[in-house]
């Protein structure tokens, strides 16, 4: 394959050419209620060409028929030449990498019979259904893949990456009369078959929660002191801050650049945030990004001060900074854009625990788990899976419909206490941006306290 790509590169008349080819083997099993929905094996493959010429813009072609590769290189070049630019696009220098990066398959999913995968998921689905008669519906999904990615560019990069992935998810729907609640479990790992065993308890717990939520009151909408659990704190930092740290948001926009000036204070000195694509064994981990740049640990906020941002080669060149290995594409169907990898809030002082965060809160909310989050730049929303009221320094009754609405700047600045109990939260699903969803990412955080945050709901 590498030779074939090298040959096509040679044929290209563009100033800069890159080619990415992917072949993905995947299998999927899903249950809905007691019924199997599907058990299937799929093969997806295709290519992506991107070229650049002096005084011109990007020319891009993606295709499923690899026989078309030489023709697509030509067409991408024509498209580039049709885009006239006064200000040229420059790419920051990256030493051309040549490597075969084979991640540990951890029990190659291609060697496991589909029937075994069905049995495994049947057990997890059954664990949810067995919790209570109030569980009227479930969705359980298993998906695995082994993806081979070849990348070459006209500067001499030549990479082959083998990436496994396995995702398990479960939704339990509890219903009593007109009242409907759900519990959600999601596990996503850049690993294989060995890593998805023995999760019955986690599926049981989410079904029980769906049942418990049926009796829980809605949280009263108001501003409260809020403690985020590890999972929600991770989603929070990804949604509320991570997206703003993606340099494609600021690089063409002077006002945005001003807002995100390095050196600006974003939080109290307890706050440290980063993005680490090179962390070992996580779902957002990859040795090289989709422009062939090695990944790294990039500090974004250090002691409350904005110190860095995430780059592609183009955004780094424009801002005179260094590429960080954050140019990613969800598949050959898309160009690489600036994305997060494994984003984290660093742990606070060792020994600081949940009790230290909660003890002086008279009335507050402990927001747990995440149904999802969305950001509109300075404004964000995230939906907790469930919550508890905090009363007189203690975790009190279960509440539902906990939605945090907030303004980034105010909220980050109101983080006043961070525990030492850091965990990576390896969830399935993924991040969406620019029509590219779901991109595998990981979030990590300890328990985090926000002095005051707005919780939506009935007032």
């Amino acid at each position, binding site marked *: 394959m590498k030779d074939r790509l090298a040959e096509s590169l040679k044929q290209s008349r563009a100033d800069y050419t890159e080619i990415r080819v992917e072949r993905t083997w995947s299998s999927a099993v899903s249950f*809905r209620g007691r*019924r*199997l929905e*599907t*058990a*299937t*094996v*799929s*093969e*997806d*493959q*295709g290519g992506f060409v991107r070229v650049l010429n002096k005084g011109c*813009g*990007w*020319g*891009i*072609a*993606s*295709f*499923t*028929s690899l026989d078309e590769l030489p023709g697509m290189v030509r067409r991408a070049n024509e498209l*580039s030449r*049709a*885009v*006239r*630019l006064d200000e040229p696009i420059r790419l920051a220098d990256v030493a051309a990498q040549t490597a075969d990066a084979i991640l540990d398959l951890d029990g190659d999913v291609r060697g496991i019979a589909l*029937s075994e995968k*069905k049995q495994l998921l049947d057990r997890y689905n059954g664990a949810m259904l067995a919790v209570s008669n109030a569980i*009227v*519906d479930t969705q359980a999904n298993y998906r695995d893949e082994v993806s081979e990615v070849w990348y070459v560019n006209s500067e001499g990069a030549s990479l082959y990456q083998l990436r496994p992935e396995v995702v398990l998810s479960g939704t339990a*729907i509890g*219903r009593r009369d007109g009242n*409907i*609640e759900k519990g959600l479990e999601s596990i996503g790992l850049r690993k294989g078959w060995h890593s998805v065993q023995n999760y019955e308890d986690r599926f049981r717990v989410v079904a029980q929660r769906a049942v418990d939520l049926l009796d829980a009151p809605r949280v009263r*909408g108001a501003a409260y002191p809020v403690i985020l659990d590890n999972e929600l704190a991770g989603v929070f930092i990804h949604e509320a801050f991570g997206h703003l740290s993606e340099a494609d948001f600021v690089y*063409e*926009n002077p*006002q*945005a650049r*001003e*807002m995100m000036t390095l050196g600006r204070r974003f939080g109290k000195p307890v706050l440290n945030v980063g993005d680490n694509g090179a962390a070992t064994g996580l779902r957002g981990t990859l040795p090289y990004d989709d422009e062939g740049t090695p990944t790294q640990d990039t500090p974004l906020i250090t002691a409350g001060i904005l110190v860095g941002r995430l780059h592609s080669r183009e955004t780094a060149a424009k801002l005179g900074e260094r590429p960080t290995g954050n140019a990613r594409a969800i598949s050959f*169907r898309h160009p690489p854009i600036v994305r997060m990898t494994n984003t984290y809030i660093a742990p606070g002082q060792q020994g600081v625990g949940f009790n230290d965060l909660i003890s002086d809160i008279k009335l507050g909310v402990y927001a747990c788990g995440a*149904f999802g989050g*969305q950001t*509109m*730049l*300075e*404004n*964000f*929303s*995230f939906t907790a899976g469930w919550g508890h009221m905090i009363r007189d320094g203690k975790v009190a009754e279960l509440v539902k*419909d906990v*939605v945090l*609405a907030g*303004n980034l*700047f105010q909220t980050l600045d109101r983080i006043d206490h961070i525990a030492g109990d850091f965990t990576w939260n390896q969830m399935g699903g993924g991040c969406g941006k620019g029509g590219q969803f779901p991109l595998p990412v990981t979030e990590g955080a300890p328990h985090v306290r926000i002095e005051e945050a*707005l919780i*939506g*709901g009935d*007032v």
Partner: protein
Amino acid sequence: MIDRLLDSARGRVDNADALWRREEQTAVAFESGRLKAAGISEEAGINLRVLANGRMGVAGTTAAKPDPKELVERARASAGLGEIVQLAFPGATAAPLPSIPTFFDHTANASLAELIRMGRLLVERLSRPGCQINVSVQREVADTAVGNTAGARGEYRATGIAVTADLTRIAGDDVLMVYDQYVGADMPTDADLEALVRSVETRLAAALTVVTPPEGALPVVFTPAGLAAVILPLEQALSGKTVLQGSSPLAGKVGETLFDERLSIEDDPLTPGRPASRPVDDECVPSRCTALVERGKVGRFVYDLETAARAKTESTGNGRRGVFGKPHIGYTNIRFRMTDGGRDGGAQQAAPLPSHELGGGLIADIADGLIVDDLIGVGQGNVISGAFSHPVGLAYRVQRGEITGRVKDAAVAGNAYDVLKRIGGVGRDGRWLGARWSPSLLLEGVSVARR
């Protein structure tokens, strides 16, 4: 391709159906007012479903020259693990498929230069100091063929074009984003592009002043875009799948009046000029219109073949499938038909307002309330229950019948089933937004929280 595949399946399985689709896209992107990239994408794939020993299995591939035998074997292996289902594929019909224009030469033949020209026009019209303008123009031509071993066949070509403009204004730490789009099967006319420009301009102008949000249970005008959060629970509950699973709050309520009697909603795959329109669904079922809500009463649920078979009813022609995975239920075009207003309404009481008129003519009697145009996090909560609770992405305060400015740091919450029981007013600004046509609706007693 379909015929070769189905031939290969005959004799090796009980029955089979397949979809083949080839899509070609051409896109241009303007970033911060500059044309930055032009791209094409070509993709073809095939999806096969089989019934073998009464069990269902699927297989899909994007391989350029798929081996029919291998694909059938893979689907058979999938069926080996599959569930038993009494699925009858529709046979060849004597009547022709409904005739619906899905292909427009104009769109298919538009040159790259023409797509660039449209984008440039929007950039020129919408550029202003302190604002960043991004525009994208995307054109698609798709060929679809469906068939099954019972003899049914369907084939059509479709075009689609999406023109989107989003404008970002950052002033200090205040970030304002205004967005709109034209989506159609045919190229936008100059008037369509003008409407897009006016829509973005109007909403930007009204947003420049930031005012304190109100608080309490208030009248809120949901624009066609803002309505997404209110409609999503209904879309989920009206799916035959959630009804079958027992999780739909509308199960067993067909014929009951649960909504305002002026409200009718239908799924209509036969609307000319819409990219989601089609003569036949992805399972060879001829397209037809389905009344989801009729004058406030729960109407029909939508079904694909498998869900219909399990629920012992008929497919409504809402089968949708991709290259991978099995067919599932999908809506086509969702249309609101309001009986006292809106361009598509029955007895029209007043002339339609242009869609850029904020509030659709519904704000005159509002003493204090909101116009909600965009909410953040729609689809993330416990949607099926009807409950929604979202911070506002773009919303305006209305005081004494006038828009006084944009509100920030506010959240709206309610339950779709409660707020649609009594609609306070129907806007005269009905429009298409993607695959949904609706006017603005004035809904009362919506909970508004602020910091």
